[in-house]
């Protein structure tokens, strides 16, 4: 387990630091390889990658204005201007320290909150789990401001993909078009590998070659830890945003970063410095995004409902080893849960120590040319897909989804709704069937307190979104009454 943690942490930092790769690609590729390992070892390696990739992603974000992972995008706003005025070392040090703070904060929240949620979880029956999954889907669609219709159609596509094949109750075939290769359905991991790993490989291979130019850093990187203490409020509130967004299914790092950055700017004594090299801006974005991974494990461990795509992938590791997340995990396998807590705590310490001493080495590694990187990812993608069932059909399906993923990435359309649609759609179908067996009228569905609250939340979220839309439209009409080329996003 120690080796898995080390490999996951160090590997995750390097993977996060290389623009064009990211934790999703690495986890998608490694997922099948972890099935043959002990469940805690496999999960530790994957959590190591997930938790440490955003640390590494800050390096190119700060030094070359290129986020290593997509969620480090806001880090470029203040990190790169600091580099431009000769404070690259200080910016990186702050980024590492803020990430460390956010990571530890979320693990502590995980330790406190997941048993609490697991204690409430026995009150979650089929209706409540159905509504929680529906809330997650609604949130993942609404979270994509400006692309709600695209997110909606892709989430529904994910739900549809999950229905293909043998239906589990009456054993009828659904949408197989009499093709034997569709009889067992479309595997989630094949889709994940195609959409994340192969699509990235194709994108890098087709696009023009490039590689970040970086200069070595001089001096030590410890000063950020001391400087962070001067911004305790920003770091704490940003980490809290990360925890909240991580716990809510479908929301994740982008919303957490955006909310914490906005909060930090509005409450700062120097709001005009944001976007020009503000320490508070850098701390806000890095603390928030690193606080998400630990918190995303809360609904996964306590309820078995993944908070976002990466935890959705990790759910398959649980199922392959017959470890069922939920309240029974806390009752019967508490040692497994405690091992995850310890792994996450050690992970953050390991990563920080690694980064403080080896940033210059990582800078050399991230200069890999992008097309070469694409070739490597393509080769690794084969391992991931073929090792599942040694099936050329799986590889063909993954390649097809790879091309589909390439198109989505070029059009800047979201991929996550497809994955969450597949996972949450599957949960929803099973739970709805079970729930409806005891429901006589529609109101019976929400006659329990938790179900009523969840249903109320779904309506509230939709109503708030419509209200925001109306306010924006009215503001746009007021500001530009004669202009019909407004670009209000839906």
């Amino acid at each position, binding site marked *: 387990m120690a080796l898995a943690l080390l490999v996951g942490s160090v590997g995750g930092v390097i993977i996060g630091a290389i623009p064009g790769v990211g934790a999703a690609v690495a986890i998608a590729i490694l997922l099948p390889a972890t099935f*043959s390992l002990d469940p805690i070892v496999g999960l530790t390696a994957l959590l190591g990658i997930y938790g440490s990739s955003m640390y590494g992603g800050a390096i190119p974000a700060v030094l070359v204005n290129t986020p290593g992972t997509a969620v480090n995008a806001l880090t470029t706003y203040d990190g790169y201007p600091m580099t431009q005025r000769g404070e690259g070392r200080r910016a990186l040090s702050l980024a590492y320290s803020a990430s460390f703070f956010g990571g530890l904060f979320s693990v502590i929240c995980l330790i406190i909150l997941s048993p609490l949620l697991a204690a409430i979880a026995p009150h979650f029956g089929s209706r409540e789990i159905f509504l929680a999954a529906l809330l997650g889907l609604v949130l993942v669609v609404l979270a994509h401001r400006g692309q709600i*219709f*695209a997110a*909606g*159609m892709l*989430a*529904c*596509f994910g*739900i*549809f993909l999950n*229905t293909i094949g043998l239906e589990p*109750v009456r054993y*009828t075939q*659904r*949408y*197989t078009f009499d093709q034997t290769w569709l009889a067992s359905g479309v595997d989630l991991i094949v889709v994940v590998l195609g959409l994340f790993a*192969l699509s990235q490989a*194709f*994108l890098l*291979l*087709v696009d023009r*070659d490039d590689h970040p130019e970086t200069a070595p850093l001089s001096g030590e990187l410890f000063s950020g830890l001391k400087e962070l203490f001067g911004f305790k409020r920003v770091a704490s509130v940003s980490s809290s945003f990360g925890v909240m967004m991580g716990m809510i299914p479908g929301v994740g790092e982008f919303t957490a970063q955006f909310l914490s950055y906005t909060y930090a700017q509005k409450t700062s004594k120097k709001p005009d410095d944001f976007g020009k090299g503000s320490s508070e801006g850098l701390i806000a974005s890095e603390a928030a995004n690193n606080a998400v991974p630990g918190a995303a494990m809360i609904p996964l461990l306590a309820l078995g409902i993944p908070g976002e795509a990466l935890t959705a992938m990790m759910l398959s590791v649980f199922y392959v080893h017959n470890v069922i997340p939920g309240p029974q995990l806390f009752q019967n396998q508490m040692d497994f849960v405690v091992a995850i807590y310890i792994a996450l705590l050690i992970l953050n310490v390991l990563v920080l120590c690694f980064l403080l001493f080896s940033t210059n080495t990582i800078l050399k590694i991230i200069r890999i040319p992008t*097309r*070469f990187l*694409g*070739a490597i990812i*393509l*080769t*690794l*993608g*084969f*391992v991931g897909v*073929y*090792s599942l069932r*040694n099936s*050329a059909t799986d590889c*063909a399906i993954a*390649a097809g989804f*790879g091309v589909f993923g390439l*198109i989505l990435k*070029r*059009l*800047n359309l979201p991929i996550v709704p497809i994955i969450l649609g597949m996972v949450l*759609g599957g949960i929803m*179908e099973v739970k*709805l*069937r079970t729930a*409806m*067996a005891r429901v006589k009228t529609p109101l019976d569905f929400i006659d329990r307190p938790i179900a009523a609250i969840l249903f109320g939340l779904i309506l509230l979220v939709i109503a708030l979104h419509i209200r925001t*839309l109306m306010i924006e*439209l009215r503001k*746009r*009409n007021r500001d530009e009454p004669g202009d*019909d*080329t*407004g*670009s*209000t*996003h*839906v």
Partner: protein
Amino acid sequence: MTYIKTLQQLFHRYRRPGDLVFALLFLFVSIFLLSQLGEQVEWPGGGKLVAQPGFWPAISLVGMTFFAALHYIGSALSPRIPGRWQEVGFWLRGLEFAGWFMVYVWVVPRLGYLPTTLLFMPLLALRAGYRKPAHLLGAAAVGFGVVVIFKALLSVKIPGGAVYEHLPDGLRNFMSLYL
């Protein structure tokens, strides 16, 4: 007029070149799948609607078609950026590398994982535009590393190549198990 202007503003968004093509294709696929609902799923008599095998595919396809139609309308009403067909060409160029991938998948069970990877990586690097011997050797080295890490160390399930049958016994077992 105000109503139409508001509707246009509601659907306006930034769209990349090729968005309309994708939106139209996705809408067609959604409508096609929805039209197959009567044939591709069963609706046995009796029982509640939600317990029917066709219920959940129906819900997902209705949702998909609805949102795809709205997405298409948004694309059609939003300002166009030139470069649509160049973008579609970019997508089609991705098919070439999907082809490379499938050739790799086809050859591995025949030639073996290590020999195929040692050939595939440098060839792909050549195709990607790298010509220097250092790059090609580096590609082969990375391929070797991938095989050793995943097959030899992590024991992922990739069977030996058919060509290994022609090797002497001891070497055949070693190659099949570890390379």
